[in-house]
């Protein structure tokens, strides 16, 4: 491959035109639009596959503990008890969640729990676009079931995994698994 240079003329060298050209370039950059986002006032919309804060659905969860198993750093704590319940006219033995806690301060957002979740749609997922997780107290980053589901005081979550209907939230279920 040959590279051909424009021949620098004598005047270009003597008058330091290259340097002046550089100065011209930076001077033009001065007036170009800036790319900075003034964060608290303006916010960027995260991408659709962005992994933000956890979202949990009590109704879908079948208490299989697969997510806790999948978690590489074991920060998902699940307590379960068995309960006899009538489903479709038959008495069935069901697992009922007592406790579903995530220690988010140690989480690395690998989303393996979401992958491991066997329910359809997922009952734990991270693609929520909520990224403002900073707190002043590290204990505030320990979330129990209710907090994971309702995010009191946190910014609104941005959506479910795509093509899935919004789940109906069973308000009576809220009192059952009152662990933590």
């Amino acid at each position, binding site marked *: 491959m*040959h*590279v051909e*240079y424009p021949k620098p003329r004598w005047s270009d060298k003597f008058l330091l035109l290259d340097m002046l050209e550089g100065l011209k370039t930076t001077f033009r950059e001065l007036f170009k639009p800036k790319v900075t986002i003034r964060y608290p006032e303006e916010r960027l919309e995260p991408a659709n596959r962005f992994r933000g804060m956890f979202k949990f659905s009590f109704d879908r969860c079948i208490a299989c503990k697969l997510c806790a198993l999948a978690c590489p750093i074991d920060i998902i704590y699940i307590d379960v008890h068995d309960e006899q319940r009538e489903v479709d006219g038959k008495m069935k033995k069901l697992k009922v969640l007592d406790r579903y806690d995530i220690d988010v301060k140690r989480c690395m957002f690998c989303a393996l729990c979401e992958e491991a979740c066997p329910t359809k749609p997922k009952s734990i997922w991270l693609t929520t676009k909520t990224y403002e997780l900073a707190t002043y107290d590290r204990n505030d980053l320990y979330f129990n079931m209710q907090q994971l589901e309702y995010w009191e005081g946190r910014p609104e979550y941005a959506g479910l995994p795509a093509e899935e209907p919004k789940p109906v939230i069973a308000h009576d279920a809220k009192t059952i698994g009152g662990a933590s």
Partner: protein
Amino acid sequence: MSPELLVFAVIGTIAVAASILVISMRNPVHSALFLLLTFLCVAVLFVMKGAEFVGAVQVLVYAGGIMVLFLFVVMLINVRHLPDEKVLSNFWKGGFAVGLAVFILFVTLVRPGVYHDPVPSDKALRSTYTYRHRKVKNPDGTVTRKLIRRGKVAGNSEAVAMALYTDYLVPFEVASLFLLVAMIGAIVIGKRELSASEEENIPAYMLERSETEHEIKEAMSA
């Protein structure tokens, strides 16, 4: 007590004290700093004696150049002080004796001298003179050329410059030649000769300062 005397007393005391510290400090850097202080004091003394230009040059050359050079060398060889140092050499008694003798010599010389006579007008220190030949008609009708000296008060720097470029032009040129010789000599003496291994390992950019166009082409094609 006149203000001049006060300034002289203070500056002179500082100069003497600093110069004593120059030769008594263990650490060359501290010595250099006190020498700097001495130079500044001397510059003030120059200004008091009507030599503003020399005072400014003193600060410019000594403080701005020579002392920086000293500090540069001190850092380059980075000795805090000499190892296993006795500061004084073996014949320090003789040194003090010689110094004292010289000092007494100065005192005896200065005391009776003519230096206590009144100073003539120091206007000459701040005036420039131009010389011109002018034709003068003598009473007997002959015309002779006569040298006329015309003075003009212009300031010390201009007066020094005029003297330097007229009466002292040759010494001035010799001084510049001297500086050239000193520069070449310092470079030749201070140049480090590279050992064979260093010669091999020398980075290419130190040997060839700029890549030629041809080399750029080769590098790009590689």
